[in-house]
């Protein structure tokens, strides 16, 4: 099928036109091609919908954020630290009804295919070996991270949209080294928009042969992430929680986060059962913490005034 000449439109990509023309034939942009082209036209008797189901890019996001900016969750961590596994676990638990309570029911998702793709690897397949780690999230040419969407209905009847950024670890590594790096635009996007930042500490890496490098990378990344979060929610998430890490190492990691932002909550997740703790539990705790995110209101400071009249300066900082 043809491409829509509009730079922002992905109407060729199995979704509707970005201006909202359900029938492409009515779209003025699309008609520009139609007149000159001889290739197959979309069936005029068929309609498309404006979401593909896959992870959302920066401009696909408008479909959801037009209503209001979703609570955006940035998962910040180096490569293979288990970021995608966290997302996959969330989705699987959601599918089993084990993620949320009655106060907040799953309502919808416009990225079901994206979630399925992420979770697919953690499922047992008939005639296949056991689940394995999700494949590496590649740093595709697209500069925006793929965003996965979920909406929950709260008790008061309102909807709460959540958006999870599934971004490759390379972005964060580049970003931790050079904030302005041209390859770190996606990381900058996350740092700017994330309402919640999950800072991933990979226990396997921190216990492995390259633990020094891993610690160093974490410290750099933590510094950046904490500075970027500017008082927004931030949590330290230990992944691969079944792996033992030297207590002194744990202390260093906590210090890297805690020195800049005290009282950072900590979560530990693992796909293995740890003692009496079911694998699901860590993910559930983390998710309900994410779900209770609320942006505070704004108390605007009174604006600056010139002059020495006390009356006008009264009550101002």
């Amino acid at each position: 099928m043809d491409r829509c000449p509009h730079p922002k439109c992905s109407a060729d990509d199995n979704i509707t036109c970005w201006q909202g023309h359900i029938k492409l034939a009515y779209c003025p942009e699309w008609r520009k091609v139609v007149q000159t082209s001889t290739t197959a036209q979309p069936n005029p008797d068929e309609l498309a919908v404006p979401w593909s189901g896959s992870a959302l890019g920066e401009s696909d996001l408008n479909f959801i954020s037009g209503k209001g900016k979703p609570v955006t969750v940035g998962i910040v961590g180096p490569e293979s630290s288990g970021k995608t596994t966290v997302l996959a676990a969330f989705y699987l638990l959601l599918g089993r009804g084990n993620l949320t309570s009655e106060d907040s029911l799953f309502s919808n998702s416009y990225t079901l295919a994206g979630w399925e793709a992420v979770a697919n690897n953690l499922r047992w397949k008939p005639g296949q070996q056991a689940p394995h780690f999700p494949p590496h999230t590649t740093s595709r040419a697209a500069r925006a991270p793929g965003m996965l969407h979920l909406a929950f209905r709260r008790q008061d009847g309102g909807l709460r949209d959540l958006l999870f950024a599934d971004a490759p670890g390379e972005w964060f590594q580049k970003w931790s080294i050079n904030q302005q790096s041209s390859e770190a635009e996606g990381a900058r996007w996350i740092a700017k928009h994330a309402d919640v930042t999950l800072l991933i500490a990979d226990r396997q890496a921190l216990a492995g042969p390259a633990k020094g490098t891993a610690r160093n990378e974490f410290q750099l990344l933590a510094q950046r992430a904490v500075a970027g979060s500017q008082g927004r929610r931030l949590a330290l998430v230990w992944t691969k929680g079944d792996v033992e890490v030297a207590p002194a190492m744990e202390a260093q990691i906590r210090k890297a986060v805690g020195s800049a932002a005290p009282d950072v909550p900590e979560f530990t997740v693992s796909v293995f059962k740890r003692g009496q703790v079911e694998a699901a539990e860590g993910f559930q705790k983390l998710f309900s913490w994410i779900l209770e995110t609320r942006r505070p209101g704004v108390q605007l400071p009174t604006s600056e005034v010139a002059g020495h009249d006390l009356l006008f300066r009264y009550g101002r900082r």
Partner: protein
Amino acid sequence: MPAQHSILLVGESNVGKTHYGAQFLKRLMVESCALKRNGAATNLEAFTTALSSLADGKATDHTPASTYVESVWPIKDEAGRTAELVWPDYGGEQVRNLVKQRRIPAAWRERVLAATDWVVLLRLHSLRAEDDLFSRPLQVFTGPEIKEVTEYEPSDQARTIELLQMLLYLAQLNLDRKLRKPRLTVLLSCWDELETSELPEKLLAATLPMFWSFVRSNWESPTVMGLSALEKALSRTESNEEYAIRGPEEFGYVILPDGKKDKDITLPIQRLMAQPA
């Protein structure tokens, strides 16, 4: 005259929609239910083969239409309330493809816009229950063997949700508030093969928790019922003695939300008609 109901029946292939339609039609014909026909149906092609197979006690092979056709039946109940039952037929795999290819026949749009009630047929028995890390914990995680998997089937649960999401979009309904209209009824078809005594709603909640959450959070008061259009499994080739003698209208039942069994398989529709359109 109160506004008329327009009841849309949605189901993927192989959920027993044609059998239900044929049984429904048979009930209307022999007037063994509380509903009456209220004029001629538009197109009964999809159901005539099924009707004759069932008369002999055989299951039918529904040959799906290659294009979108629909069958519209005007009906009325004892109180004189009228309704239109709309049976869209979009050909075999098309509903699955609907979600996959993300193209919907334009005629659907008119239907979903006009519908006052949606009846969704789900056949729980044929849905895959997949095991994952949480239902079957791992002993050993097979190392970081990275293999990019490009081909996979989305879960049945996700596909069913996506289907309804697409219909909601086409019907220009937004989910800002829970929906009062169109009302939603979920019919769990082929109830007999489930061999359960669970309440329909409980069973749905246990089998498809995410879908059930989706339904409950977005509709004001969804209804879930069990449906066995045939009451027993029929063979395609060998006729069933009892069916042949007593007639298919003597078979089939619904399980009401409170668990009670009723022979009148038109009850789900009657209940919808009893409510203001």
